Every structure is written in structure tokens, then in C-alpha cells.
């Protein structure tokens, strides 16, 4: 009997080590796999479709078209972006400083004509968020979008092109974008959509 009483005296502490191990393992896993969505300058309400093909994570060139028809351009990969802006600057005779290239390489979508890009990159980050971006010109007279696409493909030849249009975007703008792509001999591209909720 005496022995039994002794057993009860020890505090009911429990070895937490394996649980903590597991918890930290999971923390590490989620920390490494989480990719925070970058701040997009534009809200795009995508139409839904029955398509179930997933968009790959990397090597994506996104052309976003917002409600009022402004065109935004985004390429992933820091290195590719650096190369792209350097070539773009060359073509339009704009010298970007190292800091500007650096800022551009970590930014997200841009919808700024190349002429005002330098000014935009030197803006305060807070101000950048509130600035209304006019969109990239894609007219036949001055088609900067085409140049961005060409240089993006030079910087990263594996890139896939995805169009992310707002459901309210007017067709003529979409036509303009598709025509730009076709003019550059891109006949295969993706349209980003949401999954259809009800059939």
C-alpha cells in the first residue's frame, strides 16, 4: 500500500517533447511553403468556368485587364524581371538606376506607361499603393504591351501567358490583347477563371 501512495505523489506531468517536435516541424513546413500574395494594384473579378486545369505557380506572365479596361502586366521571377526592365529601358532610351531595377524586380503588376515608370518607382511605397495606374498602352500606334511581352519572353523563354480579365471588361480590349499576342506569334495562352459554383 505504501508504495502505491508514493506513485500518486509524483506530479502528473507529461512528456511534451514529441508533440513540440511535431508542432515545430509543421511550423517550419508551413513557413517554407507559404507564399504571401503580393499586393496587386488592381482588383479583378474573374468569370467562372467549368475548366479544372490548374495554373502553374512559376513562369507565368499575367496580363490583367480590369473593369474599365486598363491593362496590367506581371511577370514572376526576380531575375527575369531585372533582365526585362533593362532591355525595355534600352529600347525606349530610359536609363534605370540599380535601385530602380531592384524596386521593379520585387514589385507586382504594373500598369504604367514606360515613360512614367521611373517616376513611379521612385515614389513612396505608400503613395504607390494609392496611385491610380492608367494601364499599359496597347494601341497599334504605341504598343508597349507587345514590347513587354517580347522582352519577358526573351528574359524567360519558358514563360506561359495567362490573361486575367474582369468579367465586366469590354470585348474590344480583350480583342486588342489577343491581337497583340497573335502578332507576336503566341497562339496558345490561358484564361484565368474561377471555378464555377453552381452549374
Amino acid at each position, binding site marked *: 500500500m505504501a508504495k502505491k501512495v508514493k506513485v500518486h505523489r509524483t506530479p502528473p506531468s507529461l512528456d511534451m517533447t514529441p508533440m513540440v517536435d511535431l*508542432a515545430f516541424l*509543421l511550423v517550419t513546413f*508551413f513557413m517554407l511553403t507559404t507564399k504571401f500574395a503580393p499586393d496587386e494594384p488592381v482588383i479583378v473579378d474573374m468569370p467562372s*468556368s467549368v475548366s479544372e*486545369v490548374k495554373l502553374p505557380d512559376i513562369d507565368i506572365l499575367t496580363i490583367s485587364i480590369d473593369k474599365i479596361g486598363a491593362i496590367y502586366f506581371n511577370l514572376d521571377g526576380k531575375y527575369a524581371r531585372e533582365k526585362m526592365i533593362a532591355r525595355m529601358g534600352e529600347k525606349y532610351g530610359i536609363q534605370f538606376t540599380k535601385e530602380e531595377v531592384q524596386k521593379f524586380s520585387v514589385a507586382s503588376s504594373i500598369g504604367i506607361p514606360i515613360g512614367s515608370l521611373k517616376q513611379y518607382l521612385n515614389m513612396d511605397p505608400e503613395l504607390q499603393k494609392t496611385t491610380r495606374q492608367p494601364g499599359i498602352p496597347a494601341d497599334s500606334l504605341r504598343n508597349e504591351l507587345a514590347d513587354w511581352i517580347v522582352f519577358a519572353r526573351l528574359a524567360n523563354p519558358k514563360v506561359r501567358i495567362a490573361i486575367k480579365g474582369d468579367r465586366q471588361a469590354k470585348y*474590344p480590349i480583350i*480583342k486588342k490583347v*489577343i491581337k497583340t499576342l497573335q502578332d507576336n506569334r503566341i*497562339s496558345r495562352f490561358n484564361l484565368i477563371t*474561377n471555378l464555377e459554383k453552381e452549374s
Partner: protein
Amino acid sequence: MGEINAQGGGDKKGKVRSKKASTKIDMTPMVDLAFLLLTFFMLATTFSKPQTMEITMPEKPKKEEQQPLVNEKKVLTLILGKNDRIFWYVGITNPKVEIANFSANGIRKVLLQKNQEIRNMIVLIKPDDTSNYKNMVDILDEMTISNIQRYALVDITPVEKELIKNLN
């Protein structure tokens, strides 16, 4: 060594007691933090990747190349107009234009029926300037749903614009 210990043992009681205290540390705050982070990252992770629709446009034809001719009776033309309306007709000469919408009883019914009636049907999708992107995606979606193999996105011609003008 032993001696030193013995010397240090001069003020025995306190030191001996402190040695007795267990070397275990309280892990509770650390575990709390670990789980907090775990919860945060679990919730912050986005599992849902956006859906995508692959579309292949025809290559730009070279000038010398002859375009293949198609039987006009096999052509179904869909014109996407204002306010989510679809104008559709079969054939090209003297078409009988009808109006449908995007509901399940609208264009889908037409597509399924025509797809059965006409073998090797070719659908031409012509979005009007007043239509929007959603219409375009929806109609491409209908092509997938109705299992239509041959369809193309084509620019609208002035003749067709005239055609639907009277119906608007």
C-alpha cells in the same frame, strides 16, 4: 576535485538544495507560441490555385496560303451582343437569326441540338464590341460543356453588325 567540493560544502544546506531543483524548464510558453505560429501559417497558406482555361488561337495565316473552304451549311455562327444576348444562325447566305441567352435552356440547348443535327459542325464565335469578357469565357465554356470540337473566335464583320442592329 573531491577536496574542492568538500571545501565548497562549507555552507552546505543552501547549495545542496539548489542542486536538487530539477533541470527541466517549463516548455508551455514555447509550445503556445509554436501552435500560434502553426495556426497562423496554416490559415495563411492558400491551397486554392486559380483555375485556367487553355485556348489556342489559329496562327496568323500567311498571305500565299489558301484558306480551307468549308461548307456553309456546317457553320453555326454565334454573335455575342449587348446584355448577355446571343444571336445565332446556321449558314451564311440569308441567315435566319434567332436570339438565345446564356441559361441552360438557352444556347446550350441550341448547341447540343445542332451538334447532333450537323456532322462536323464548325462554330464561329463573334463577340460584338458591346459584349464583355464574361460572355466570351461563358461561350467558350459552353463549347466545352457541349463537347464541340471545332470552334473559333472570329472578329465580327460589318454585315453581321447590320444584321443584329435591327434586332437590338
